């Protein structure tokens, strides 16, 4: 019984990280209808930016993270404005190929600059601290912080989308990007803002992820698949859905790891495919 509880608890904590990975992807799917195959590589890229800021520029971690968020917003805005806006259309092929090309470029540039070694961010043993509950279940502080961040950001994104003028512009642009131009909304600018915000979400995920584990330049595609699976399992169009999708994926992987370390990721993929067959609209699709 304790084992089951432990799997679920650790799965939820791992899932919070996947939910964080996926929220940026969910935003980009929702607003731009863009399938960004470089999503995972953007996470890895920001991990290495943070690594450069702390290990090479010797900035304190808190300062580096704030700086990372600013850099991320600018980078996201610029990537969307300069490159991805040019290939966004009804035909999914051009944007898929361009982001796939970006993915290969990012992986190899990182290998060239930082070598293929995995890197992590030093937190001064914070990542090793945990509290132990009754029954021997341990909760790491870092995973708890991750969970809190995921919940807070899901709230924030839901509020941004539902209650603010910018969210209205996002939803309207998603519905019809030609018509919103009649209302004085530039879809190019809206897309760039959405990607900027997606990159901020990615930066938060990247910071927490790099404290948890060492990251190598070629880890991006795996992260892309986890993020994608969380979005689809959760159901398109709601950040809570994405959050729940991340949890489901995390629990599935933890259960797999428990039986055999080789089958953990495999079980996550298979659970995703089963959800796809049994419930293609996802667990929490937007009903409105």
């Amino acid at each position, binding site marked *: 019984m304790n084992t089951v509880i432990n799997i679920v608890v650790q799965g939820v904590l791992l899932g919070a990280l996947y939910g964080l990975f996926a929220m940026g992807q969910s935003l980009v799917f929702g607003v731009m*209808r*863009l*399938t960004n*195959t470089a999503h995972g590589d953007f996470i890895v890229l920001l991990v290495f930016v943070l690594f450069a800021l702390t290990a090479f520029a010797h900035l304190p971690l808190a300062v580096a993270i704030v700086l990372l968020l600013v850099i991320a917003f600018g980078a996201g805005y610029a990537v969307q404005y300069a*490159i991805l806006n*040019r*290939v966004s259309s009804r035909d*999914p*092929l*051009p*944007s*898929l*190929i*361009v982001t*796939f*090309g*970006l*993915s*290969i*470029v990012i*992986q*190899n*540039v990182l*290998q*060239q600059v930082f070598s293929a070694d995995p890197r992590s961010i030093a937190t001064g043993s914070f990542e090793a601290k945990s509290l132990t509950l009754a029954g021997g279940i341990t909760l790491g502080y870092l995973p708890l912080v991750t969970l809190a961040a995921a919940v807070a950001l899901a709230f924030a994104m839901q509020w941004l989308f539902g209650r603010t003028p910018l969210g209205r512009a996002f939803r309207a642009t998603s519905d019809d990007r030609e018509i919103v131009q009649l209302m004085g909304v530039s879809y190019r600018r809206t897309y760039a803002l959405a990607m900027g915000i997606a990159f901020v979400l990615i930066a938060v995920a990247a910071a927490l992820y790099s404290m948890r584990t060492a990251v190598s330049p070629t880890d991006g*595609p795996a992260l*892309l*698949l986890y993020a*994608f*699976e969380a979005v*689809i399992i959760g159901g398109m169009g709601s950040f809570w859905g994405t959050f729940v999708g991340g949890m489901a994926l995390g629990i599935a992987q933890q259960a797999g790891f428990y039986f*055999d370390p*080789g*089958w953990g*990721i*495999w079980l996550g*993929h*298979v659970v*995703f*495919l089963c959800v*796809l*067959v049994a419930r*293609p609209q996802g667990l929490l699709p937007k009903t409105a």
Partner: protein
Amino acid sequence: MSMHLNRPASSFEVRRATRASRVAVAGLLIVALAVASAPWWAGRGALHDFVQLASYLVFAMMWNLLAGYGGMVSIGQQAFFGIGGYGMLILSNYGGVSPFVAVPLAAVIATVVAIPVSRVAFRLEGGYFAIGTWVIAEVFRLTVANVSVLGGGSGTSLTALQDVPRALRESLTLWLALAIVAAAIGLVYVFLRSRAGLALTAMRDNAVAASSQGVDVKRARLIVYLVSACGAALAGGLYFLGNLRISPDAAFSVNWTAFGIFIVMIGGLGTLEGPIIGALIFFVLNRFLSDYGTWYLIGLGALAIVVTMFFPQGLWGFVSSRFGLQLFPVGRRVVFVDAGPAQKRTTGGMADPLDTPQATHRA
């Protein structure tokens, strides 16, 4: 190759061949003869090179069929490449089948596997389909990596050919490669010129409109998916027959699809000529620049981005529209032959209207 459907009662004919296409067929036959006789005049390295080139070419052609004609952009074709490779190896190492027979047999297995896989993958569309197929390919990779009989993550070797003399083995592999390339080009060409091919082209241009004209879009998509799975498996079986060693990370690597995409985009998406030209370019680049490692891959990625953004029709698309060439005309062109004043203008000034590129290709 010329096929004039003359109808006595009417005053037009349907042209399906061009002067360039007749020259191309003759040229390809000469190349095929040269390659077939290669064991008597070329070095061992050249034979191995051709087998690799053939694998890249067939794999890219199948990706092109799927994306350029079927409108399904997949990042998971390496699933079938890997099944072709492992299927060939299992049949020959454990089943006692000759590896040269095992390659097509493994392709049949991959096609059968593709039927249930398509039921899952077709739940998704567009970009979601692309990443969904990638997940499926990862499931195959992780499954094989966890099976210890097949060497697990570090892979295994093709031992069934140990008793075959090296020269004979290399010649047979070359001829198999040539046969697979010839079959792939020939079958895709015939398929695209058939009724089903016309339906496919219509579907690519507008699925809803094609459906309203009676095209069974679902069925056409499934057929294209199965054909391209079969072809990708042939490429995989061939590659690992030439390589003699296989591992899950090599067989199910997403790089196969990355290279396929690069070949097709450089050469020209949605054309038969494109992958052939793209494969030759890729092969030369790979040969001379792959020593540069990361810089080489950065260059490939950047080139794919630039071509997609600024030259989406690719090299062959450019040549075809600039010079009005079609080596493999898959379209039909109505040519009016009577001297009626109204129709006369349509033929006037054009030597052979099928030679004009707007005949069938995507704008």
